[in-house]
């Protein structure tokens, strides 16, 4: 048996209050595509940070090519042949592709040579890139290509990828997999972090499953069912959301010809959107980040004004109204960014409850704030949605992601909206909180509200949405009933492969 490329033995890392990794061991062979599976908070990130030199383990050893491997910083890891593509890209929007890649390299060649190499390597691996383009103008998939190329140009032996497919359409995922298989065939090992079971079963040779910091299983994904892997990941059968069937009612929200420019230099403008939303239904809008989701939410929340008739709420044109006016009429929204947009990080939960609840919960008396009423509202949100916090006067930034998200969504749900628009409602949230949030949305729809759910998580949309449409570069695809859709069709609705080609043989 050939010696493994990377051997990890007994790696442990603890932080105050939590053991992130507990005596984890695993081996990766040369040319192997190895999956690292686990729920949010299972310890995948920490393990990988230790391999990449960002974090020092408390105990345990690693060997690379048989030699002891203990990188003190990413530079050392890179020098040893370990490269990593993070989930959050480290890219500079205003600089060019070549400049971005140069910044990620130790001693880059002069820009002209580098540009030439970028063209060559990107073509070879099916990820064509123009080195002179400004990164801010690229799509999310193309930006990921820049990150991958940055790694490839340093000839890695081990390539770590952290949740790479969250920014790709299904077609682009297929192309990425071709690229990865080509790399594996050339002897490069790949450590593939994900929680998407079907993808792992399609791509990976072996899988290590982490749960609560421990390595609970190693298996061959091709021979294991998704259900078994899910069980190992979570440790128990997951609650599935309960969805009562309900016939949709009258049209609650009518969008006609909605077009507007993004105020952000690198944003996406909306182009002629048309759709309707009925009472009691959940419409899911999918699409990879950066295709106009934020702009759509802002257009619906009132932060961006449009033509009055472009947005009609129960027949009334509201396009020219601001957020306060729309709330009064029953159109509520919950943005993607928890800290800084949906909630003010340094203010406490009472003040954050006041932020959107002032009108509908009658928290103002002729302009003066009724603090006791605001406190009561905040307390109701905390109780009803099981928000773990020492009290309503805790600052928003002190809450965990999942709890804050429960608060933010709960704040809107408790105001009895006619129409609720949410953007990435369960992003970065632990599994239990995610289930609770999705159930809250379903219950709200069952009570007659109309819900628009914008999300990158296709599984989520398939689970809760009645109908589905995809946003691609600011345009909306046709809207189809969810139950009739295949993954292939969804991928095409999301815009296909955006110019990626299959890797050359």
């Amino acid at each position, binding site marked *: 048996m050939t010696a493994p490329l990377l051997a990890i033995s007994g790696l442990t890392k603890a*932080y105050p209050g939590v053991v992130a990794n507990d005596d984890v061991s695993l081996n990766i062979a040369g040319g192997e595509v190895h999956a690292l599976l686990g729920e949010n908070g299972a310890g995948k*990130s920490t393990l990988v*940070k230790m391999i*990449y030199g*960002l*974090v*020092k383990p408390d105990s345990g050893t690693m060997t690379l090519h048989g030699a002891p491997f203990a990188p*003190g*910083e*990413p530079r050392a890891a890179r020098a040893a042949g370990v490269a990593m593509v*993070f*989930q*959050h890209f480290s890219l500079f929007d205003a600089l060019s592709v070549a400049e971005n890649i140069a910044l990620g390299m130790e001693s880059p060649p002069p820009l002209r040579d580098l540009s030439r190499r970028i063209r060559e390597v990107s073509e070879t691996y099916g990820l064509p890139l123009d080195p002179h383009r400004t990164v801010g103008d690229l799509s999310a998939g193309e930006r990921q290509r820049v990150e991958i190329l940055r790694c490839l140009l340093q000839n890695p032996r081990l390539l770590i990828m*952290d949740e790479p497919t969250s920014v790709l359409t299904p077609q682009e995922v297929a192309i990425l997999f071709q690229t990865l298989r080509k790399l594996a065939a050339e002897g490069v090992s790949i450590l593939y972090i994900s929680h998407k079971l079907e993808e792992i079963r399609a791509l990976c040779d072996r899988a290590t499953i982490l749960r609560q910091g421990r390595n609970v299983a190693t298996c061959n994904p091709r021979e294991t069912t998704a259900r078994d892997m899910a069980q190992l990941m979570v440790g128990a059968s997951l609650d599935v959301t309960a969805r009562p069937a309900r016939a949709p009612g009258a049209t609650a929200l009518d969008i006609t010809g909605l077009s507007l420019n*993004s*105020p*952000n230099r*690198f*944003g*996406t403008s909306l182009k002629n959107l048309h759709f309707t939303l009925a009472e009691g239904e959940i419409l899911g809008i999918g699409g990879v*980040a*950066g295709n106009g989701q*934020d*702009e759509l939410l*802002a257009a619906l929340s009132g*932060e961006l004004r449009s033509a009055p008739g472009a947005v009609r709420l129960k027949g009334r044109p509201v396009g020219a109204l*601001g*957020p*306060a006016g729309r709330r009064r009429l029953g159109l509520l*929204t919950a*943005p993607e*960014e*928890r*800290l*800084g*947009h*949906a909630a*003010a*990080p*340094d*203010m406490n939960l009472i*003040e954050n409850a*006041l*932020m*959107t609840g*002032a009108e509908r919960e009658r928290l*103002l008396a002729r*302009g*003066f*704030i009724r603090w006791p009423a605001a406190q009561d509202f905040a307390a109701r949100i905390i109780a009803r949605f099981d928000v773990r916090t020492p009290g309503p006067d*805790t*600052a928003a*930034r*002190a809450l*965990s*992601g*999942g709890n*804050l998200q429960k608060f933010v969504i709960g704040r809107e749900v408790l105001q009895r909206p006619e129409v609720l628009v949410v953007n990435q409602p369960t*992003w*970065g949230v632990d599994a239990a909180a995610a289930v609770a949030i999705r159930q809250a949305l379903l219950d709200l729809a069952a009570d007659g509200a109309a819900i628009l759910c914008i999300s990158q998580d296709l599984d989520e949309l398939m689970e809760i949405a009645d109908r589905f449409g995809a946003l691609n570069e600011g345009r909306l695809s046709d809207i189809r009933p969810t139950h009739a859709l295949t993954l292939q069709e969804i991928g095409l609705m999301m815009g296909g492969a955006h110019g990626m080609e299959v890797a050359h043989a």
Partner: protein
Amino acid sequence: MRFILPEILRGSRPSGDGGSAPCPARESAPPMKLRVEKRPQPSRRWMYLSPLLAVLVTMLAGGALFAALGKNPVEAIATIFWEPLFGEFAFYYRPQLLVKGAPLVLIAIGLSLGFRAGVWNIGAEGQYIIGALSGAGVGLAFYPLDAWFIFPLMVIAGALGGLTWGMIPGLLRVRFGTNEILVSLMLVYVAEKLLAAMALGPMKNPEGMGFPGSRNLQQYPSAHNADLIADTGMHWGVVAALIAVIFTYILLGRHVLGYHIRLTGQAPRAARFAGVNPARLVLFCLGTSGALAGLAGMFEVSGPAGQVSIDFNVGYGFTAIIVAFLGRLHPFGIALAGLLMALTYIGGEIAQSNLGLPAAAIQMFQGMLLFFLLAVDLLTNYRLRLSPGPETA
């Protein structure tokens, strides 16, 4: 220049809670490392303590400065802080506290609203001057008529003048996105030139025997901003300052507009989400601070200063910035900070005459105060930790 960039839409993912944003480990570091760690909640204790600590540290540093200048540090500090309050001539100096403190507090209250909202009015000095010119102009126009309505008209004129001067950067920001810091500052220089032009030209005293400067308003009873209670230093400006403090306290704590101001400064994107109209808020803040600064100028020119002259403005508009921060942008804090700053002015003057301390030293002292306050303020939102080993959380 868009300082407060409208962070409305950033096509990328939010970082912050729970994201896997990587942080490099420190290299092999010395055994103990001073780490700066963000607190989960802003610390209440340090919110109150930091100004006090800053004052103390400034006293120490100031003392060192005075020692370097060859003066006895303890004597100097005592002269500045003790003499005016409890010394031999305190009965004279104490009213001066109100006289010097009132304009500082009045201006600082206005500035604090803007600062809380991320609206940086640095041109209060200019608004102060224009308010003075407007008020004095109205008064001089009526000379020598004696009537009850002249003073109120002057007050209104002063407020309007300052408001207008403050609205210029406001409108430019709202309409063009121009940065208000530089515009309001440029307008200070313009106002100073205007002051000189007025003092030497249209407002020059025809009976002044050719000397520059306007008629002295202290000798014009209808226009004189006299002490309400003789010799206490308490003139209408002091009353206005008191009203401003109370009004702002209620506004910030109890009224939705105050809430919106705080929200805009802390989380501009959330403020827009909440429905705050950013343009209206900017105009409100700049207009109000302009009006208050203008009022301060008007009360000053018709009271303690007495006339429009080239050197009428003494820098209250800039010192008020220090007062605003020292008072942690809170109305009661500003009231106290204003009195403290007035104390340093008066004590400084005493130290100048008694100890030969140069006037510039006091200016430096006041600058140091702001410096130390900003440095010590770190402790409100961050914890300093001495930790073993080279780790990052």
